[in-house]
């Protein structure tokens, strides 16, 4: 009896010690001469954030700027902000400015560094056989968006203002999540319409199983509004200004490269992010995004974003111009764009 218990005990102890000896599997030794940077990217499959990041990684733009970048994916929105606040040495991309501003109102010290996407790029879609053919068919129906305060929430709000102006009932928003969840929800009739952005779900657009209801021209008022931004924590920016500049330079170079070399950029993105859509589908992104929409500066239309946040109930009151100005730190982007 004693021996079998001893044997069991020793085996367990050996297992535990052996396991303990294995170090942290995600610990990577940063390349000598580079600084580590945690990049908070909501979804690597998003054209506006995934493409430049993986192009920069593949083409060595980050390495050239002496940066060792780790891509961290999140579920978007406030989680991006939480991740940036948490990570020592983290910058966030593809995030609605409302999340950043709301955090600052509660005492965070975040700075908007540049625009990620300018112009409302949210596309609403329905199932192929649906009787809804335009946004006016959405009156009184359930429509999906990602989370409160996001650009999709704002886009839905714009549609509802339009409906209200025509005396129709507004659509009912449901916080579903990103395009994949929107697609599933639409497919299973949980909602009548969902949202996406090019080129997500475009293989379904192509084969006709979903139909787009809106296009880029559906939101003329937002042509010069930065709907998503790049941001970082104020303390990190102050202490690592060089790294911030380097990141923005690499980002700028990546976009320049991408717009000049569609095929190469798409291949880099597809391989790096392990996407399964064919390149031909991913290429539709270039029909929607241009150097103008992907510019770092100027960061336009933040006041519009703020008033949207207020009307959505995410913010209690609009910010003053000086409050808004203190949330923005565009100097790094300026030097990045000029050097790129």
């Amino acid at each position, binding site marked *: 009896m004693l021996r079998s218990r001893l044997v069991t005990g020793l085996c367990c102890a050996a297992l535990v010690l052996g396991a303990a000896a294995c170090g942290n599997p995600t610990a990577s030794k940063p390349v000598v001469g580079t600084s580590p940077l945690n990049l908070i990217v909501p979804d690597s499959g998003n054209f506006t954030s995934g493409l430049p990041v993986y192009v920069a990684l593949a083409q060595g733009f980050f390495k050239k700027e002496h940066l060792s970048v780790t891509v961290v994916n999140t579920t978007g929105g*406030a989680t991006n902000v939480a991740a940036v606040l948490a990570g020592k040495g983290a910058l966030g991309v593809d995030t609605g400015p409302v999340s950043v501003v709301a955090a600052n109102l509660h005492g*965070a010290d975040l700075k908007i560094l540049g625009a990620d996407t300018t112009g409302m790029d949210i596309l609403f879609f329905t199932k192929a056989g649906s009787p809804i053919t335009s946004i006016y068919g959405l009156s009184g129906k359930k429509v999906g968006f990602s989370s409160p305060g996001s650009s999709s929430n704002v886009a839905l709000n714009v549609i509802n203002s339009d409906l209200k102006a025509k005396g129709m009932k507004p659509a009912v928003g*449901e916080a579903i999540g990103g395009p994949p969840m929107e697609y599933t929800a639409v497919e299973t009739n949980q909602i009548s319409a969902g949202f996406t952005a090019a080129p997500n779900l475009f293989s379904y657009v192509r084969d006709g199983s979903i139909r787009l209801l809106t296009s880029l021209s559906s939101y003329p008022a937002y042509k010069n509004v930065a709907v998503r931004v790049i941001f970082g924590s104020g303390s990190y920016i102050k202490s690592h200004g060089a790294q911030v500049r380097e990141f923005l330079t690499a980002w700028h170079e990546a976009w320049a490269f991408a717009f000049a070399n569609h095929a190469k950029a798409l291949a880099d993105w597809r391989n790096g992010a392990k996407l399964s859509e064919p390149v031909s589908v991913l290429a539709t992104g270039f029909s929607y995004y241009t150097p103008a929409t992907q510019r770092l500066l100027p960061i336009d239309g933040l006041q519009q974003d703020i008033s949207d946040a207020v009307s959505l109930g995410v913010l209690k009151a609009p910010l003053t111009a000086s409050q808004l100005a203190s949330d923005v730190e565009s100097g790094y982007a300026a030097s990045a764009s000029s050097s790129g």
Partner: protein
Amino acid sequence: MTWPRRSGTWLATRAAVVVVFLAAVQAGVQTRLINPLFVATPTTAIAGAARGLANGTLGGPMLTTLYEVAVSLVLSSVAGLAVGYLLWRFTDLGRAYEPWVAGLFAAPLILLYPIPLVIFGRTTTAVIAQATVMAVLPVILYTRQGLAGIDPPLLKVAAVYRLRHWQALRHVFLPAAAPTLVTGLRLGLIYILVGVVSVEYLASIGGLGKTINFAYLQFNMAEVYSAVTCVFILAAVLLAIVGRLQWMVRR
């Protein structure tokens, strides 16, 4: 074991411990040792909870969550007791399925929450379905275990008195297995509480979990922790009730 004569003392000591803990958290947040961006002070949370319950902004979601928990509890208890009994009564079935049930119990079933969402839509029914499935497993396991652990002499007693099976069940077996059964129900309740609020949080449907998620997305930590306080109150009340049941059954 008699119910402690001075039950008031236990309550008071417990309350004192909680107060000390909350005071420490309060101090931590106010001195910014704990980042106030992610944790609200207990005073704000409790005041907000009281306010929210009074004016219905938290009371409504709390009722929704309570409804989901209650229905899940009834469904998982009935199904769990029935299946657990069957697994004990028909030993072949028990031997065949018990490891599977135990294995499923060890698996992260919460990750499958999108499936009930699709089957039942984005409704409270989906939340109930997920929580019921998660909770029925421990009830099955503990029911079978409780019945299997009945003292053999008791089985003989039932035979000697020539009791019919359902009579034996009612008068001998269930009372004997009751302590373990109720432990299983208590564990099931915990899994229901965690499951209901988690699915509400992840899918943004239903009651308090949805409130927590939306408040978190707007960095309204006061509301987050007010809602968490309400969840705590709900859990405490329900668990206390089941705990009392457990004491009654242990006698």
